[in-house]
């Protein structure tokens, strides 16, 4: 069997494995551990394509370190993930945006035109990029098969064709199963994460093999290759125009890591949890570091082993192990490159398919009366099938490009030209997220100018190179004007065409965006979106109800519209849930702004925000609104919702406390034999919290204009006081049970030191949090006692909590001591607080203390706790007392009779 068959079988097996992983992940999609920050960070590494795998080494071998510019931008963006990416994620979640084209369209008033324009730029930029992945796979395949004819043959002889078919099937299966594109595709993401891990593994293994197997470590390679011609050029960047190229290419990749459709897809659309970004901030640069560590050594090693350009440097990673007869490693590397290419293709095509269906296909159908009538009954199927069809079409186009146009270019140049294409979104997308002034006309100008300059300076030369048009335009400039030469635009000639093209396109683009936005004005719909985008963190929680809308609509119309796309069952379910959540009564006929807004959002997930807007306006009669109204409504609802949320949270707490109170109250009333005095003590103790609760509730009730912080503070206090009452009631009940003898206290033989230790364990956390020094001084030969362990722990805990309350604020010290005296066992808790006045030392244990017409208050906080302690100790036939310490502080101690043998 020839090696090419092994390769074919292996790659099929690998693809099979992807199917298995994806299927398994879909099945377990609801499991928590499948949505974790590591999978998220790894999925971002879809950034590293076959271009990284083969192209980086090739570029490093020929041009040296400037291959790193592709990674410098992303690692610089990583610290900004929390600032930039999180904002994008939040916006997209709030508005159910699923692609970069949707994002731009939504920001500028949900414009159909902008969405379509951005989609077309993406298609033009990404199709060649996909095609180089196909090219990378098929040329790596040819290294094994020695099939020189390769792509020149008929398609059924071409491995790339079959690969394309399988990937189409895979992407359809796992990238576009759900009509609502804002739902997560766990299978797809798990596969991408797996592939990221796999390609890293393969590349690092090869790196070790080359560095330590073929050579003696890094420095060996560097020292040996210092003999090579051009070595100095490879380990530095050219001080003349190298710095400029370095700078512009870094900015380029800095933008690409966010704006590339596939990056947007994994980083934003498939993000489950903003907190995953935190790990990605360092994990993603780490990944890029690991995958780049061996690039230069491999490249230089290749140059040493195959001097004089005898082997294409793009294929070093395969040829090196093969030349040494290490077929196994070569196969591993092949699969690594294969995984890099496939993950890119899968994610890019599913991202593109959603973009096309949302921004080109559906608006097209809606616009054509004939089509929309004809397709009306099963629009949801049309959307889904359309998306799947688009996947096939995209892959077909990529394949055709690869086969008929893209052959003469190295991997890197096409990749970078793609980057420049999507970088044109930067001013309108990123600018629009931080600058409210950016408007629709500015965005149109920005994309148009950027697109034209990109086409002219970068795309046109590739077309000329492919011999599709005559080269005169390159040499003489457009219309023979020498300052309009594509590669020396305005007479500036960089050594690197890409950085030059990027510089001109992004400068003109940015200028157009800012200039036109500043000179023209926004429509109201746009202002609303600009407000929401820029201040998303103010609105995201309230978005559902914060949108501005005035008009008339009927729920049945809206429902009918939705069920065309989502199916009747899902629509009904969604409406039911929404009505529940927003307290909308069953049988409501007219839709209010919340319903309209909710429906539009649901639709956006399926057909994109621009199409959703158009669809909604077909069932809703809208009125134009004034600008001030917009702001008023936004501010009103925002305040209303935050306040309400706060209140809701508190009232749940209050309710819980209330339930407990009622229960306790019931038991209280049952105790009919309670003494008068007891009642009056208890009612008295309760008056204080009730007073606060009543006063504060009345204040909240009477003062609607309370500041939010004030309101929150009052509510907190109410909850706190309610808890205080709850404690009090529990204590009273406890006490009563003990008094009336209802409480059984079973005794056993216990060691007081154990009880002390257990109590210490329970408060240790609290004590160390408060910075109090706790020491124990336990008697070594303490006699046993009879007692109830739990109740004694309760006593010690109570004594300790008083000690904690009263001990010195800054240098608190608490000591627990056990000792024996005259046939009894003693335990004391001492603190270094102010101590207790002599005349209160006895009274402090009295429950009826305050009822005896005393007007002086006993020390705060002792509550009924000490009274309960006294009861418990009484049951043990022991005694409890309080005294002041030798120097300062209070000592509370109890003694229990020694166990008689």
């Amino acid at each position, binding site marked *: 069997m020839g090696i090419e068959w092994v390769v074919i079988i292996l790659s099929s097996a690998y693809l099979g494995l992807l199917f298995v992983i994806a299927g398994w992940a879909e099945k377990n999609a609801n499991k928590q551990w499948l949505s974790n920050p590591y999978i998220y960070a790894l999925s971002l590494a879809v950034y590293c394509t076959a271009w990284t795998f083969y192209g980086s080494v090739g570029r490093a071998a020929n041009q040296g370190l400037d291959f790193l510019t592709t990674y410098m931008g992303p690692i610089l963006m990583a610290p900004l993930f929390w600032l930039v990416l999180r904002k994008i994620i939040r916006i997209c979640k709030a508005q159910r945006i699923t692609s970069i084209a949707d994002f731009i369209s939504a920001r500028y008033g949900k414009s159909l035109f902008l969405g379509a324009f951005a989609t077309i730029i993406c298609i033009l930029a990404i199709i060649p990029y996909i095609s180089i992945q196909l090219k990378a796979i098929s040329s790596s395949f040819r290294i094994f098969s020695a099939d020189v004819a390769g792509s020149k043959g008929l398609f059924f002889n071409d491995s790339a064709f079959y690969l394309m078919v399988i990937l189409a099937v895979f992407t359809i299966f796992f990238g576009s199963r759900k009509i609502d594109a804002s739902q997560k595709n766990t299978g797809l993401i798990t596969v991408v994460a797996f592939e990221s891990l796999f390609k890293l593994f393969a590349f690092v293994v090869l790196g070790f093999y080359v560095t330590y197997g073929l050579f003696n470590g890094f420095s060996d390679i560097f020292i040996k290759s210092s003999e090579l011609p051009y070595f100095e050029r490879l380990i530095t960047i050219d001080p003349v125009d190298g710095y400029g190229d370095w700078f512009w290419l870094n900015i380029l990749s800095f933008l690409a890591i966010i704006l590339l459709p596939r990056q947007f897809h994994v980083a934003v659309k498939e993000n489950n949890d903003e907190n995953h970004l935190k790990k990605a901030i360092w994990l993603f640069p780490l990944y890029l570091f690991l995958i780049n560590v061996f690039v230069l050594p491999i490249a230089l090693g290749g140059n040493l082993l195959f001097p004089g350009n005898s082997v294409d440097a793009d294929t070093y990673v395969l040829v090196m192990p093969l030349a040494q007869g290490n077929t196994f490693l070569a196969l591993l590397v092949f699969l690594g490159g294969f995984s890099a290419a496939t993950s890119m293709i899968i994610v890019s095509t599913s991202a593109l398919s959603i973009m096309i269906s949302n921004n080109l296909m559906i608006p097209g159908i809606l616009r054509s009366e004939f089509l929309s009538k004809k397709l009306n009954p099963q629009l949801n199927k049309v959307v889904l099938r359309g998306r799947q069809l688009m996947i096939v079409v995209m892959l077909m186009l990529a394949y055709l490009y690869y086969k008929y146009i893209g052959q003469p270019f190295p991997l890197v140049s096409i990749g970078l030209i793609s980057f420049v294409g999507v970088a044109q979104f930067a001013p309108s997308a990123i600018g629009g997220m931080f600058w409210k002034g950016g408007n629709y006309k500015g965005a149109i100008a920005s994309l148009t100018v950027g697109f034209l300059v990109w086409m002219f300076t970068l795309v046109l030369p590739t077309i000329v190179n492919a011999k599709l048009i005559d080269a005169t335009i390159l040499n003489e400039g457009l219309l023979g004007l020498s300052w309009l030469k594509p590669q020396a635009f305005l007479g500036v000639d960089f050594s690197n065409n890409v950085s030059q093209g990027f510089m001109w396109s992004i400068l003109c683009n940015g200028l157009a965006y800012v200039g036109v936005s500043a000179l023209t004005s926004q429509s109201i719909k746009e202002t609303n979106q600009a407000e929401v985008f820029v201040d998303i963190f103010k609105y995201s929680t309230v978005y559902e109800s914060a949108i501005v809308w005035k008009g008339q609509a009927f729920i049945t119309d809206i429902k009918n519209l939705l069920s065309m796309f989502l199916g009747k069952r899902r629509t009904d379910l969604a409406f039911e849930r929404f009505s529940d959540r927003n307290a909308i009564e069953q049988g409501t006929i007219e839709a209010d702004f919340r319903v309209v807004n909710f429906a539009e959002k649901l639709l956006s997930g399926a057909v994109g925000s621009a199409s959703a807007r158009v669809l909604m306006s077909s069932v809703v009669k809208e009125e134009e609104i004034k600008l001030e109204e917009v702001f008023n409504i936004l501010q009103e609802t925002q305040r209303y919702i935050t306040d309400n949320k706060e209140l809701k949270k508190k009232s749940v707490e209050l309710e819980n406390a209330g339930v407990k109170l009622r229960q306790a109250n019931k038991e209280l009333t049952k105790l009919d034999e309670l003494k008068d005095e007891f009642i009056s003590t208890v009612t*008295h103790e309760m*008056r*204080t919290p*009730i*007073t*606060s*609760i*009543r*006063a*504060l509730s*009345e*204040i909240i009730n*009477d*003062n609607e204009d309370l500041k939010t912080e*004030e309101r929150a503070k*009052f509510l907190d*206090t109410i909850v*706190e*006081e309610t808890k205080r009452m709850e404690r009090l009631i529990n204590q009273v009940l406890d006490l009563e049970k003990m008094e009336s003898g209802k409480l059984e206290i079973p005794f056993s033989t216990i060691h007081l030191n154990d009880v002390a230790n257990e109590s210490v364990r329970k408060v240790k956390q609290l004590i160390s949090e408060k910075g109090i020094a706790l020491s124990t001084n336990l008697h070594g030969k303490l006699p046993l006692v009879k007692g109830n362990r739990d109740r004694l722990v309760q006593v010690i805990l109570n004594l300790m909590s008083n000690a904690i309350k009263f001990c010195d604020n800054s240098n608190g010290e608490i000591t627990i001591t056990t000792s024996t005296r005259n046939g009894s066992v003693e335990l004391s808790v001492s603190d270094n607080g102010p101590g207790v006045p002599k005349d209160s030392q006895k009274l402090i244990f009295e429950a009826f203390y*305050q009822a005896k*017409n*005393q*007007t*002086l*208050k006993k*020390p*705060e906080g002792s509550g009924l706790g000490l009274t309960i302690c006294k009861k418990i100790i009484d049951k043990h036939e022991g005694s409890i007392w309080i005294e002041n310490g030798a120097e300062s502080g209070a000592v509370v101690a109890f003694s229990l009779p020694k166990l008689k043998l």
Partner: protein
Amino acid sequence: MKKVLIVDDEPNILMSLEFLMKKNGYKVFIARDGSEALGTVQDELPDVVILDIMMPEVDGYEVCEFIKKKVDANIKVVFLTAKGKESDFEKGYEVGADFYMTKPFSTKKLVDKVNELAN
């Protein structure tokens, strides 16, 4: 601006009373126990004193007596206390209180009463 002194040892009650009085346009002073109250009364000569009875060290009766006899009999005193027995009421008026109110109290009633006494 009329001045009100609030004397109570419960921080949460103090908080609500302070809010109420400020809201109704009074200049508010606060004392957390009886002895502090004695000092503030002399320094600030408030128009109305809202006074708790049960406090550590010096109780409310003593404070009231001191105000009426030693400082200024025109200073109005409102007892605001948890002690709700007939005998407590009597004792309160005995030491010269202008009004006696039990906790928990109605904020509206209290504000009305203070307004009435202050003017």
